């Protein structure tokens, strides 16, 4: 048991102020993840029950899916966990700058995954004609993967809050600036997963980049302005409050992020891969 005051060193795995030594925040998130397991358990069960009791005229999954693309975005999501782990490691060593980079990287990888999902949904609805309403497979598929996507999006939002929070100075004001900073981060992430990433995927499939830039000129202009703002606000000023003592906060979000990742592995297996057996 080490004392922070005595040695200046924080033991990131043991909190001597709690009965068990487990930090409160960590225990809270673990318990929440147990609860979240049941959320996804209920949703995945719903999907499988209806998949095993198909209705005449149900969508045929293997004809709808684009397994290469989904495999790619799965890979990106898994890699985002690596960046998340690096962010936790950086803050445990008190390296705020590196923490910020890794948080941004995790968020961007999350957005690539979400963009893949936006592309996928758009493609399934418009090209494959599978909607929420016209087949029970559509109902369960969009609800299940959409709920997971919402989890990733909430994760990106939480990471964004954590990122912007690292700029809170030790002294002085600037709350409004900080809130604008957060809004800019949200806009950048939103534009990237709603327009940028799906358009890039279109480009990979042969669409012209110039055309897409002109079609989505407005969101790209706003996104570019927000991106510039994010860089502008990130010029480092004075001493910040955020530091090694906040490692538990980053770690707690990390737990959530890894969990959402693991759930995706299960969904990817149960919803996509099993269809190809």
């Amino acid at each position: 048991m080490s004392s922070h005051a005595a040695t200046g060193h924080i033991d990131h795995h043991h909190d001597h102020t709690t009965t068990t030594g487990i930090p409160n925040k960590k225990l809270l998130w673990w318990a929440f993840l147990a609860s979240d397991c049941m959320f996804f358990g209920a949703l995945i069960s719903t999907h499988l029950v209806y998949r095993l009791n198909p209705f005449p005229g149900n969508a045929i999954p293997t004809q709808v899916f684009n397994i290469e693309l989904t495999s790619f975005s799965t890979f990106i999501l898994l890699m985002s966990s690596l960046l998340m782990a690096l962010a936790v490691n950086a803050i445990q060593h008190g390296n705020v700058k590196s923490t910020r980079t890794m948080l941004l990287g995790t968020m961007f990888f999350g957005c690539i995954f979400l963009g893949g999902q936006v592309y996928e949904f758009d493609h399934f609805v418009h090209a494959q004609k599978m909607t929420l309403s016209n087949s029970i497979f559509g109902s369960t598929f969009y609800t299940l993967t959409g709920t997971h996507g919402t989890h990733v999006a909430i994760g990106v939002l939480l990471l964004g809050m954590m990122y912007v929070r690292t700029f809170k100075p030790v002294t002085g004001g600037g709350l409004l600036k900080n809130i604008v900073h957060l809004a800019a981060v949200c806009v950048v992430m939103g534009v990237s997963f709603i327009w940028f990433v799906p358009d890039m995927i279109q480009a990979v499939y042969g669409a012209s980049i110039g055309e897409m830039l002109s079609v989505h000129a407005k969101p790209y202009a706003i996104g570019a302005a927000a991106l510039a703002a994010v860089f502008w606000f990130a010029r480092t000023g004075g001493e910040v409050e955020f530091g090694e003592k906040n490692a538990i906060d980053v770690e707690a979000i990390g737990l959530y992020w890894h969990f959402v990742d693991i759930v995706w592995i299960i969904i990817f297996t149960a919803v996509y891969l099993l269809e190809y057996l």
Partner: protein
Amino acid sequence: MAEALVKHAFTGAGHPPAKATFDLMARPTAKTGLVSWLTTVDHKKIGMLYGGFAILFFLIGGLEALMIRTQLMVPNNRFISAQLYNELFTMHGTTMIFLAVMPLNAAFFNLLIPLQIGARDVAFPRLNSFSLWTWVVGAILLNVGWITHFVPAWNFGGAPDVGWFGYAPLTSKVFTPDMSTDLWVLGLQVLGLSSIVASLNFIVTIINLRAPGLTMMRLPVFTWMALVTSFLLILALPAIAIALVEVMMDRNFGTNFFEVSGGGQPILWQHLFWVFGHPEVYILILPPMGYVSEILPTFSRKPLFGYPIVVFSGVAIGFIGFGVWSHHMFTTGMGTVATAAFSIATMAIAVPTGVKIFNWIGTLWGGQISTRVPMMFALGFIWMFMLGGFSGVMHAAAPADAQQQDSYFVIAHFHYVLIGGATFALLAAIHFWFPKFFGRMVPELWGKISFWLIFAGFNCTFFPMHFLGLNGMPRRTWTYDSNMGWNEGNMFATWGAYLLGLGIFTYFAVLVWSFFKGKVCGNDPWDARTLEWSIPSPPPEHNFAAIPTVHARDAWWYEKTHKEEIAAEKAEHIKAEEAHGGIHMPDQSWYPLIAAFGLLVATYNFAQLRHPVEMFGNQVLSSHLPLAITGGVILVAALYLWALEGPAGYHLHIAPDGKITESRGGHH
């Protein structure tokens, strides 16, 4: 009342907090008055608020029940319309479960857990405040539909009317096109969120904030049951959350989850609902088992008989409780194997329940029993709960259940476990801990009068329902013909309900009287066993001057019999804590309340998503989406500011003469 409640508690000098970086507004420091209650992070105040709201809804739910009973008093009655009757039985069930018994239990979790484990507060005080206000949001959403009956222009379509378990496909747009079902769906969803957040907080508190020496097997049984209940909540609520999401998707976005024409299967709702709904039964009854396990030993002057077995039985009930949900569905044609399996599991869960009852009897056996009012209610609990248990085991036999399904026999059964069980124990608990939190005793005679009125009224109301059910009277029937042979039973039950209502009125009227005029009491008026009785009544803001060290299972009894040892220990603890900067107290905060407000705006508008926004008869917006998003932004902004402000806090210092001073800054 707010001020009277807090006037005994410590009111410090009220240092304004130093202006910290990034403060949008000054942190509230008021210790009395409205602001202190709205921004409180003190588990005792939050518990009081839970309790106050819960009792209010308990009385509202009771009035709903009396209207139902009045309608059924005589055959072919036209006291209320069939539609209003549907709304009343739906809201009676929903209110009593989600807005009365659950928050009353939450009130006691808040009031007692930190005190029983020797802690100064819960692990996350601001999150605790968020749970409370989120619960209020859910209560508003569920009840807002009543406005339609008074102001028809507010067209919610009345209160929810799909029954408390809202079976599909009744909840589909075809059968309930109005908004009441959408509000019901979101109201329950928000209440679920509140319960999950609160439970996570209690789980961490019980596991991580125990005083030194307080091992798990020294934990008071009530706290143990609170822990099991919290786990049940976080694991069971997701099932209904998903079921509600699916109904919401069906109603608003055209999915087919419960839409037979699109390949959906309404039976799925029943499974998802009861995967939540059955553990919910134990969520309602395990905390009452905890109260009784505290009250019986106190008034028998004996330790609880078979403590480890009582704890183990509670945990076992929690486990098995997840494996019996389909006994609500025996008549749906699940097939013989499933029916047999759920039958057996349901009979099995009676075993740990029976074990508990034998242990309570063992506690009474050979004790010096004093029949004070809490003890009367606790003994009433054992007896009445057993009757409910007997009819419960009868349901476990699937062939018998096929006869009893959806009849008044079922109504009799679950009112015996929920009133005779849960409510009797809650009334015992309120009476038992009232002196602790208000510093005054409830008069014994009037308590006993209310007990006997409630006991007699309860049995007169619900015992005849066994016969009505076996004679074929279906539940949720608006009226009945006079030649069915149900006239006498219904008349009797209705008079019983009035008697029960009189008893409940007496009970709470006496409490209100006692709050102002009751005999002032000391720390430990019942000569009890657990740590909450070791501190003043009502407890000071910081609970314990010195964090106790626990030496035995009945910690306070040990302290009472080892006074010198404990006094020396405490003096040392106070000195050690002062050397570390004093007693750390968390600061109050506006953000939990603001976040809950954002959630209210978001969910209230989301419930009416597809309806245009009108003001004074003119359409302002074509849908409620912009307003719902506004609510979401308020919620997110409040959560971010919440994170930025941090827990902060101040320190209390206790001088050797007992004088308390407050300081800010320094160690944190």
